[in-house]
């Protein structure tokens, strides 16, 4: 009997059509757009001016504060502009546009394929290096990794949890990464263990990726302290609280963080980026992105420079089919439709999903019949129908009492609702409004 988390969860069709496609390196685009806000926290401050020549891997925007991240040039070329550009948030935000000229890397970056196993740096130096490399959570949340590794005073990390779940349907980027970069991943995990000073790491992988499970299990034998655990398939197991529950049986208290119960969760993509930053001196300039969709000619996994326009990825995967209804950045459950395919790939883009017109429209909203399906599938134990009603009546202080801030917007309630109620829409707006109330109270 495989482990999984207990409360709620749904089983959307998996549709992992690109799972067998090896990662291909996408050719460099003519121009990249690098937004200054690719992470949670303060936007980075630009350090280059229009007309400057930059190298691949050069620091072009500096972290502005503790919760923020450095941003590096992902290509070599000339800075074309510093004007705000539309990104996947749907808004124009500050960005650096670079015209690509050749591929001239910073000389300090070690680009050889040699595996470097020995970890020579101390814990503090590792965290410093990770901060310098601008690494953020690559699972999609984009929380700066060095902040997560800096355990606050009075708390102690006991174990590292590595997230190889990839519970979003369609996405296969983490799956391919685990198959193709297993050794690097294992060393990355050991670096993270050293940074946190923990003896144990657990890698959680859903059982629909048996090849990744067996591959990493065989590798784990030669790396001490790492355990690879297959998990029963259930969405949203990739949520860090659900993953901790599934692997350890511990529950993160409402409003708390995983560190409150001694756990720190990192994505496999982040672990690989950590390996490259610490051992190879390579900042975060590229990531693996799945480009997929039912009608797409060649669903693929690409190694993409950050800032590449989404249109270039779609073109490489066979072009936009005629009957396209919408293009989503991320997976079908938590991803967000983009308002233009010229938006760039950012550090948090794990996939690009092309949805046919027939499936892209929302069904008309019906009437709540109190079937409580939303309550039974909510992995956080909330009552979505109640939050929806409170949202309609704008009773935001009551929404706070009903723990709306615990919602991680996994969308299970909206997915399951037989009346197609706009549950998550109202909850999401409620979170914004409750956030305002909380901030006001603090001030």
């Amino acid at each position: 009997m495989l482990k999984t988390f207990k409360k709620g969860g749904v089983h959307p069709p998996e549709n992992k059509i690109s799972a067998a496609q090896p990662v291909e390196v996408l050719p460099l685009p003519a121009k990249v757009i690098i937004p200054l806000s690719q992470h949670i926290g303060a936007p980075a401050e630009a350090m280059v001016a229009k007309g400057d020549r930059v190298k691949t891997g050069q620091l072009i925007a500096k972290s502005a504060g503790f919760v923020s991240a450095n941003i590096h040039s992902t290509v070599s070329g000339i800075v074309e502009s510093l004007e705000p550009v539309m990104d996947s948030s749907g808004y124009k935000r500050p960005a650096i546009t670079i015209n690509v000229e050749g591929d001239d890397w910073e000389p300090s970056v070690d680009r050889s394929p040699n595996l470097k196993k020995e970890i020579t740096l101390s814990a503090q130096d590792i965290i410093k290096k990770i901060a310098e490399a601008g690494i953020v959570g690559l699972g999609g949340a984009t929380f700066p990794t060095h902040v997560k590794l800096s355990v606050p005073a009075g708390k102690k990390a006991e174990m590292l949890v590595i997230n190889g779940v990839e519970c979003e349907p369609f996405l296969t980027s983490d799956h391919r990464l685990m198959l193709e970069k297993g050794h690097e991943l294992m060393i990355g995990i050991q670096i993270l263990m050293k940074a946190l000073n923990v003896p144990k790491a657990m890698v959680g992988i859903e059982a629909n990726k048996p090849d990744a499970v067996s591959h990493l299990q065989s590798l784990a034998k030669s790396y001490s302290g790492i355990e690879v655990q297959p998990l029963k398939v259930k969405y949203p197991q990739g949520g860090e609280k659900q993953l901790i529950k599934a692997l350890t049986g511990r529950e993160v208290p409402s409003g708390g963080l995983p560190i409150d119960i001694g756990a720190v969760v990192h994505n496999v993509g982040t672990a690989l980026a950590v390996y490259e930053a610490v051992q190879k001196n390579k900042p975060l300039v590229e990531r693996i992105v799945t480009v997929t969709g039912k009608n797409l000619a060649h669903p693929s996994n690409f190694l993409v420079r950050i800032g590449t326009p989404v249109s270039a990825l779609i073109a490489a995967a066979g072009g936009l089919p005629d009957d396209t209804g919408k293009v989503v950045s991320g997976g079908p459950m938590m991803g967000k439709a983009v308002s233009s395919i010229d938006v760039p790939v950012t550090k948090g883009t794990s996939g690009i999903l092309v949805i046919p017109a027939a499936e892209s429209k929302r069904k008309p909203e019906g009437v709540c019949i109190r079937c409580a399906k939303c309550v039974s599938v909510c992995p956080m134990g909330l009552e979505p129908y109640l939050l929806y009603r409170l949202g309609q009546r704008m009773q935001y202080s009551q929404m706070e009492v009903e723990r709306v801030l615990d919602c991680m917007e996994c969308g299970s309630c909206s997915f399951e609702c037989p009346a197609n109620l706009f549950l998550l829409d109202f909850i999401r707006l409620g979170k914004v409004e409750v956030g305002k109330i909380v901030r006001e109270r603090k001030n």
Partner: protein
Amino acid sequence: MSSVLTTSILMLTILGVVLAVILYVVAQKFKVEEDPRIDEVEALLPGANCGGCGYPGCRGLADALVKADDISAISCPVGGNETMRKVAAILGKAVEDKDPQIAVVRCSGSPQNRTRVVEYNGISSCKFASTLYSGDTGCQFGCLGLGDCVAVCKFDAIYIDPVSLLPVIDEEKCTACGACVKACPKLLIELRKKGPKGKRIFVSCMNTDKGGVARKYCSVACIGCFKCVKVCPYEAITLENNLAYIDANKCKLCRKCVEECPTDSILEVNFPPRKPKVEEQAQNAVTS
């Protein structure tokens, strides 16, 4: 049989009298002393409870009016100067006449002027749409047209025009309560001086993009060209972040800026039609 009837009548009568006495005594003992003028003032107010004055409903305003020593800063936008004069007469306080105001929508991005590039398929509310993206056109400042302002208007004074897909304000009905100003997530609605005979001039755009970018996505966008600023004889126009703004208090309604604006983003309202220009007249004379 009759004794049962008389007893019950008697009992209920006694009970009624006793309870009435208790209620009366309690009501007298715990009476809340309130200034009787609050009721009088409240009776004069419009009773819409719109909150446009900044107080919780008309009674809240009446209470504030009675309690404040100087009521010149408080006003009822719906009742206007007339109501305030009556209130001042009752309270024996002084009020100044205020210029009547009206809500104006600072966006002219109809589908003819601004091409729609995205189809929105969610809850029909600007508040929700604006959490997801900046709008269905290339302009991220313009009207979303989903009618949050219409929904909050208590006076039925706004409707979405089916052709331009923009909110239109009914001059007769608008009371300048400001509910729509607060409801608009794009901050497009402004309360402006209504002007003599409703004549007013304003920049109908909120786009702070650079001229070229703004123009690319909307043919009536303010491009920040400074032409209006230069032509204005009264220094009523300021330009910040590529966007012009006309100060209604300084504007003398000469309409020079309207003629000068290359993108027609400055609107004139309630003016009589212009006389043809001198050269045009001459031309007309020649042709005729």
